């Protein structure tokens, strides 16, 4: 019964209020009373709506900027023993809003499909995702002066753990150009191709060889299987969403990364917008601050309106502004003025700063409406002057 009444009001009230009511209204509530509550909610909701002309952008900027002064600068924090290092606080907020390309601590949370999410073979699964370079599976690197080559002793233990064989490792090494690879048991000999190389070339080669990619997902430097709410997931340091999502056994719907640009590339802007909201919210909550979600949403929306994700920098959304003076008042004023004169731009003074500069009313809030009045006879006008 209740549901029908609720349905009636779905067009009048936002879902948030309806859901709240659904939860709170006791089941023995009479229909008449329910209707009364809903009417009351509608009435109050109308009163809660924003006024036209409200400078909501500035409100959001204040609401995020002001608590920024209270945030810690401490980059790292340990939430417990089984946690990765993550950037939090102000540096993280700056990172998100700037749309920084290379994050200080990229991270993924890989959700798994059954049976892995029950914890079966999760360690092995995690290890298989981790990026392995030659230095990770080798126990020793030596330079063989007599042969002018590098001898790499592979660790049998690690090979079996990663389900690798010596030939497969040799194959991976051969992807590097300009070398000859020979395997003898667990020892792999790597020689520079061609003519006899100077011995210091071999030493250089030794360092290069260490970084050869062998297996796993590129970019994932650390893996940590943990249990989170009845489910096993893998937390990783380093991020590579595109490849991780393609691995069998990974729950592509739940798996996320904290690299917003990567999300934009793999999942699209809408996902990036949501992830900006989530990430900012996460930091603000962790700092024990209270900022309404609407403000964060508006920031995320301004970052993504163009269809691409853009940071709050002079190269990002600020450069998209139509007003020359608004751009000039932010950063690099000369550059903007000169460019404007070259392309003969016109500033129509639609936003706030330009009008402040010219001592004119700004077109927000009370500066927005105009009044229309009849132009009465001259004498009448004179009377009021």
């Amino acid at each position: 019964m209740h549901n029908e009444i609720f349905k009636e009001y779905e067009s009048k009230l936002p879902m948030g209020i309806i859901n709240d009511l659904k939860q709170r209204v006791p089941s023995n509530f009479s229909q008449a009373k329910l209707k009364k509550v809903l009417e009351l909610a509608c009435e109050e909701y109308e009163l809660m709506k924003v006024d036209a002309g409200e400078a909501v952008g500035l409100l959001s900027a204040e609401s995020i900027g002001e608590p920024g002064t209270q945030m810690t600068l401490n980059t790292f924090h340990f939430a417990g023993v089984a946690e990765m290092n993550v950037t939090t606080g102000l540096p993280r907020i700056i990172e998100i809003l700037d749309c920084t390309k290379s994050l200080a601590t990229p991270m993924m949370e890989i959700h798994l499909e059954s049976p892995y999410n029950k914890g079966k073979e999760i360690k092995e699964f995690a290890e298989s995702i981790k990026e392995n370079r030659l230095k990770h599976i080798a126990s020793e690197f030596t330079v063989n002066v007599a042969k002018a080559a590098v001898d790499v002793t592979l660790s049998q233990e690690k090979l079996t753990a990663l389900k690798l064989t010596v030939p497969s490792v040799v194959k991976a090494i051969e992807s590097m150009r300009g070398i000859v690879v020979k395997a003898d048991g667990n020892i792999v000999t790597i020689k520079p191709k061609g003519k006899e190389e100077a011995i210091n070339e071999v030493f250089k080669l030794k360092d290069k060889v260490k970084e050869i990619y062998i297996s796993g997902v590129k970019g994932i430097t650390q893996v940590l299987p943990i249990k989170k709410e009845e489910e096993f997931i893998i937390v990783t340091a380093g991020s590579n969403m595109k490849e991780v999502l393609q691995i069998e056994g990974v729950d592509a719907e739940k798996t996320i990364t904290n690299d917003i640009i990567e999300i934009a590339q793999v999942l699209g802007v809408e996902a990036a917008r949501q992830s900006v909201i989530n990430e900012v919210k996460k930091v603000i909550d962790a700092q024990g601050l209270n900022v309404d979600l609407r403000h964060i949403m508006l920031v995320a929306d301004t970052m993504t309106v163009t269809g691409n994700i853009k940071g709050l920098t002079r190269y990002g959304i600020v450069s998209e502004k139509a007003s020359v003076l608004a751009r000039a008042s932010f950063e690099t004023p000369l550059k903007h003025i000169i460019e404007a004169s070259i392309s003969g731009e016109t500033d129509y003074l639609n936003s706030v700063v330009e009008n402040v500069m010219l001592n004119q009313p700004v077109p927000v809030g009370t500066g927005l409406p105009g009044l229309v009045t009849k132009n009465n006879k001259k004498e009448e006008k004179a009377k009021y002057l």
Partner: protein
Amino acid sequence: MDERFVYRKVKSIKFGIFSPKTIKELAVAKIVTPELYDKEGYPVDGGLMDIRLGVIDPGLTCKTDGQKLKESLGHFGYIELARPIIHINFVPVILTLLKGTCRECGRVLLQKQKMDTLKSELIVQEIEDGRAEKKGKIRDIVTLLKATNKCPHCKAKQLKITLEKPTTFMEGDKRLTPIEIRSRLEKVPDEDCEVFGIDPLSFRPEWAVLTVLLIPPVTMRPSITLESGERSEDDLTHKLGDIVRINQRLFENINAGAPEIIIEDLWDLLQYHITTFFDNEVAQLPPARHRSGQPLKTIASRIKSKEGRIRHNLAGKRTNFCARTVISPDPMISIDEVGVPMVIAMKLTVPERVTDWNMQHLKKFVERGHTKYPGSNYIIRPDGKKKKITDETKEQLLEEIQPGYTVERHLMDGDIAIFNRQPSLHRMSMMCHRVRVLPNKTFRLNPAVCIPYNADFDGDEMNLHVPQTEEARAEAQILMEVQTQLISPRYGLSIIGCVQDAISGNYMLTKFVTLTRNEAVDLLLSSKVTDLSRLPNKEHISGKEIFSVLLPEDFNFIGKSRGHTGNSEEDKKNDTIVLIKEGKLISGVMDKANLGDGSGLLLRTLHKQYGQQRTIEVLGKVFRLGIETLIKMGFSACLHDTDLSENARNKIYETLDAAYKDVDDFIKVFRDGRLEAFPGRSIAETLELKILERLNKARNETGSIVSKNANKASAALIMSDSGARGNPLNLAQIAGCVGQQAMRGKRIEKGYRHRTLSCFKKDDLSSAARGFIRSSFKHGLTPAEFFFASMTGRDSLMDTALRTPKSGYLYRRLANAMQDLKVEYDGTVRDANKKIVQFAYGEDNVDVSRSENGRLNVARLIEKVSE
């Protein structure tokens, strides 16, 4: 309205550069001599200070408009350059144009067809993808053009053109003179310019090579007269002097037929001077300097940076009618009042228009003059002339005064003023208060408004602005008054609440206190509560009943106090369920969760049901009640508040000893190589984590021992329990143990080689050697412990010092990016170009400052209907 000014609204501003022709039309004088003044100190005709360009000396009149100093805005002049000069700011455009057009015929190095398609593509791109994308596209076209080496129009072979920074262009090995460059740019047809994103109407390429130079008016570069009577010219005048002098010499040399080398040298010198005139911070050039060696401030540096024209003078303005002084608290004035010192009230004025009806009233103000309060300082005649009221002029002005005049009277009680504290981080940093003129020399404010201003009284200063027109006053009062700012737009809860003493006072009152009727009446009256009809008529009155007197009669509320657990047994015992029925506080303690800012719905609900005016009245009374309670009962925190029993002390020692032992065990296991690493960590990291965890646990244990054993009735605990000041951790550090000093989330590692301090053994990993402080503040720290504490102290100082500018910059960028987003009449959020950012603000159109913590409090509605 003042007749001298023309009031017009600026609709748009077009950017472009002047052609030589416009410069000559615009200019009122041709400058021919570098001399400034003649022997009498009179500006030379045709010099840089020519009085046709405006006047900066009193007594002179401008030859162009006949106006005097401060009236004439100044006029431009020009000089004819002997040879063309490259404008430094347009060097990049000139370069792309030279590279992209034919050296013979001046056309773009593109087929006609291709050019047309590219042009239309550009237009589409700007509309669809925005400016940044268009710029990228132009860059692509330019790279394409650079690769072309044969003109498709006249088949001429193109040579490679390079730029030798800053202003020399080379074609192959040959230098291109500005004359050649200019003639090439002249050849570029208008329609070809558009491919480069150039608007030929406002920017003809050849105008970027100067043949005449516009001289800014003298009013833009006023000289100052030093005490010695010597004149000191502005940096721009100095630079212009150099330009005129070199230009003159160049003319002479050319006319005299001097050798090419000399002419070229002079030409380069002129180029240098003109370049530095525009921008004295060009990377490749040595900046032009004063004799003292400090670089000249020329046009570019006048515009740029925080102190430049744009950010300093245009985006930010200075005001009159403002005051600034130290602030101090006064809970006895209302929350929306501000105490203004008498001296300030006699300097700041409010203009009042004289009418038939108030003339007698205003005349009294004039009569009292500026020395007697409340008097007036100035009279403004209808023609705009301002007259100071002095003892001599008083009589005459009193005669003269009639409707139409304006009297600037002293600031009085009830006037409107805007009060502000920097940094103005949110809109509550500037609120409108009513003036209350008080003795002494500080601004007084109710301590409840400290929170939105983020003010304290350790020497903070604040600013006061007095609006001067009716419109401004009305707007300030309706939009900015304290009452209207009660609910923060950040989270939809009250941002104004009780602080410190007011919280602990109300906590004590509602928790322990029972008073006799006489005492209760006394208490209420001294907190300015005069309506005692709701005080129960009995011998002994509980604190809750006293508190209830302040609440509205029909107020119903259910809430939680601090330490609410949800376990009803326990909550009942601790009295943490706040229940207000019919304006009576039935159960629950008033503490920070109810009375503080940004916590709990008590104040929010009060505001929703009874409106802003009622809320600040109640809040003001509650505040004073809390303070008066403390005054009546006495409240002092002392060291022995944190004293612990022998038993408790021993327990703390035991806990710490146990932790120390565990840590030593971990280290032993580690040294034996038996420690098992956590996944994804090395063994050493694992050990650190384990130790850190164990020691933190130990500190928390000592903390709970302290809270359990401390005297609940002591002032220190009342403060921490009510949330007024301090937290259990502070108490634990005073009474129990200070705990681990951590730097960057790790135990202290750095210091001497292999150890933190020289009093420890090398590679000592034990608790004490890595910054664990087992002493309490009360018992004192050992020297090593003290040193560790100072290390983290310094670290956190550094943190704050680095954070402020970082968050300030973030805030500036946020504000700049979002400042023109507003809600339109159709409910969408749009930017200045009417581009839709959100279809409904926050997806539900709800204004946060009208919400209850971001939502509608449905529980309240259900309660209301259920009654």
